[in-house]
């Protein structure tokens, strides 16, 4: 049971045996305030309160509105399942750029409290409370003020929740527990006790290592407190770097200890835009190459970036600054995405916040770097980068030809060669994950009457009409008992000339779906080779011959 604060809104620290005494020697996590807007992708899509809606990515639900949640729609469902549970549900496509653009006014308003704001992802931002807390009269007062400000911007369609704790992870959890007008403030040093009862699954908020969390759950480490009680050395030995980061977070420490540091100047990259960019796409083009060169410069020094500052200067001398943070490390693609979202937020924002002139200079400053050791790319330059490029190219082609024009194969059961591999729209599957359904042995069940291997390389989309005659020019057919009425001697495909048959086998009858009146098909197949060496798969159905496939 998670202790939930009420009106007093302060969770008291209890001296707890599960907290390792070792932690007292570690440098303390920075006290952080997190503002999070629940179901942000739904709010950003402009869905009014009370309307059931979901945001979909790769055919899966990634965000749910409160009204939809009440009727049983949850994250991770397929589109059909969500529609099944709530037929009148509104479907919205996932668009991180839209989320970031809509979040920009919230961040701008919160900048009244502190200039050092970090956006964790669209819908959530964080800042260190040390300075502003003293100015506004304590963490609770600051949290309440931040709550009013954020709620004032996102209302009426959304709400904002605020949490304060030691470290961004604990503050994030605190914010998730908070009510819209009741921030949760965890007392100083009370963070380990606050974290202890949370399930380990909450770690997936900050790490993408679902497998690690799964292992812990199966080992019986169900709460963060149980995980925190382990010896750090043992965690490092067994679960390596990712495990140590999660373990540190569970103990209420910062994820990146001593080695998170200010990088040497000179790692920042910047570029002039001439002519200045008024539109997002022109600036984005530059952002991509800047992100690449920043990433390359860091990688050459064995570093990775956990916080990046995007700085833009306009023709009229205005400077726009925003920092983005990630608990893991930011890849080149992730940096480019964040820059794009940010530029989108600035350039297509409301008139009051939009810069008065085009952007003439763009800089990326790595604000916090760690030794790059978390991510292992492919040996010769990185498989994941290639995958990223592939996803972009697919999106590009979908833009030109339409979303259904790009498909991926998936194995199905069946007898004819065409049935055994289906083409699934690429938009409906997550291509970055492994797809066991595409492998040759994905279908285990026996299919009696299956056409034997090897499979034909050409399977005609529409079967071509064929005529088959025996040596006396009589049409060949198949009897009800499944025997041929003659020996095929000559074949004419699609009205072309007659070709002599050199070898043949069949008929192989296939009586399919006899239980279904409309889809019932009764066919018999033949394999023939013709004088030119080509081999064909023919099918006879209701006395008519068709060319199904060519080997």
């Amino acid at each position: 049971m998670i202790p939930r604060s009420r009106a007093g809104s302060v969770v008291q620290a209890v001296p707890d045996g599960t907290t390792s005494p070792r932690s007292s020697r570690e440098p303390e996590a920075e006290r952080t305030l997190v503002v999070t807007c629940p179901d942000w992708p739904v709010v950003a899509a402009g869905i009014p309160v009370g309307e059931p809606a979901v945001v979909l990515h790769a055919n899966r639900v990634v965000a749910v509105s409160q009204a939809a949640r009440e009727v049983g729609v949850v994250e991770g469902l397929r589109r059909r399942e969500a529609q099944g549970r709530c037929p009148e549900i509104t479907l919205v496509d996932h668009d991180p750029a839209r989320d970031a653009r809509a979040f920009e006014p919230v961040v701008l308003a919160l900048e009244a409290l502190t200039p050092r704001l970090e956006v964790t992802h669209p819908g959530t931002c964080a800042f260190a409370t040390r300075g502003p807390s003293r100015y506004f009269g304590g963490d609770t007062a600051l949290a309440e003020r931040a709550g009013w400000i954020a709620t004032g911007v996102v209302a009426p369609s959304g709400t904002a929740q605020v949490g304060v704790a030691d470290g961004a992870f604990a503050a994030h959890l605190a914010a998730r527990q908070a009510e819209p007008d009741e921030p949760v403030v965890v007392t100083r040093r009370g963070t380990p006790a606050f974290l202890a009862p949370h399930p380990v699954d909450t770690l997936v908020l900050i790490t993408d290592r679902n497998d690690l969390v799964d292992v812990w759950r199966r080992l019986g480490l169900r709460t963060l407190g149980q995980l925190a009680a382990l010896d750090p050395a043992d965690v490092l030995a067994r679960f390596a770097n990712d495990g140590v980061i999660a373990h540190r977070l569970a103990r209420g420490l910062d994820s990146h200890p001593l080695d998170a540091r200010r990088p040497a100047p000179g790692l920042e990259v910047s570029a002039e835009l001439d002519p200045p960019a008024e539109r997002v796409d022109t600036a984005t083009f530059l952002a991509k190459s800047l992100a690449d060169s920043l990433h390359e410069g860091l990688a050459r020094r064995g570093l990775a970036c956990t916080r990046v500052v995007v700085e833009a200067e306009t023709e009229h001398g205005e400077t726009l600054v925003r920092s983005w943070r990630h608990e893991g490390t930011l890849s080149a693609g992730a940096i480019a995405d964040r820059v794009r979202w940010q530029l989108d937020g600035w350039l297509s924002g409301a008139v009051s916040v939009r810069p008065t002139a085009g952007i003439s200079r763009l800089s990326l400053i790595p604000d916090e770097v760690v030794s790059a050791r978390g991510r292992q790319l492919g040996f010769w330059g990185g498989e994941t980068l290639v995958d990223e490029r592939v996803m972009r190219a697919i999106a590009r082609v979908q833009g030109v030809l339409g979303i259904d024009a790009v498909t991926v194969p998936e194995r199905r059961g069946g007898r004819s060669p065409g049935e055994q591999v289906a083409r699934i729209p690429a938009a409906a599957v997550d291509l970055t994950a492994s797809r066991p359904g595409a492998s040759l042995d994905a279908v285990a069940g026996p299919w009696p009457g299956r056409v034997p291997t090897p499979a034909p390389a050409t399977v005609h989309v529409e079967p071509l009409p064929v005529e088959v005659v025996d040596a006396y020019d009589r049409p060949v057919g198949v009897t009800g008992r499944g025997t041929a009425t003659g020996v095929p001697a000559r074949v004419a495909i699609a009205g072309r000339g007659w070709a002599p048959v050199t070898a043949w086998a069949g008929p192989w009858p296939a009586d399919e779906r006899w239980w279904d009146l409309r889809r019932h098909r009764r066919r018999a197949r033949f394999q023939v080779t013709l004088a030119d060496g080509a081999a064909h798969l023919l099918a006879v159905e209701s006395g008519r011959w068709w060319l199904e496939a060519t080997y």
Partner: protein
Amino acid sequence: MPIDAPADRLALQALGDRARPHNLAEERVLPVLPAIGGLVPGTGLQRGASVATTGPAARSLALALVAGASAGGSWIAVVGIPSLGLLAAAELGVNLERTVLIGSPEPSAWGTVVAALLDAFEVVVVSPEHRIRPADQRRLLARSRERGAVLVQAGGRPDAWPEAPELRLTVVAQSWRGLGSGHGHLQARRVTVEVTGRRQAARARQVELWLPGPDGRIALVVTSSTTPIAQPVLASAVPLQEVG
């Protein structure tokens, strides 16, 4: 014992320089199946090159050609071949998990689509039914050279390209085994492939291939007069010689 640190460091640096990965010729090629190694010049599919397969078994041959790269983890895009037998592709060794199929673009959009794909995919398989504009071909070749991708034409119009591809594999003859008169089923295909091209492949030569063999694998035909269906063996066991 005192160690001369600067000298040590220099020695270490020299060693590091020597061990630094060079841009080896093998890295400029995509892997191919052992039996296909006998068809292409060098050790694999030259990155940045274009290859065309024509003749009756062109599609199977193209699939066999890219199977090695696909099994090695390369992404493959197939443009405008709705009738491609995907089961055959999987049987020949293509990894369907990393295969993406693109519908048939209009001839006017064809160049744009293929160029976008060459940007990211290491292998792009096409089967053009129209004549490609010379400007389009130049753009595609430049793009594939820059990105290290391979453009494979699987059948389609033999005269689609204004300028002939670097390597052309033509199936000049095919014969099937396993089918009798009224019994048996197709089991193995023996094809004769004529290899022509530019540069290293300038001398035309013929290679006989099981596509696939009786065991379902692709193998070179061992020319032996005693056994009509020769046992397929790996290419490495038979040093292939240029003939003709």
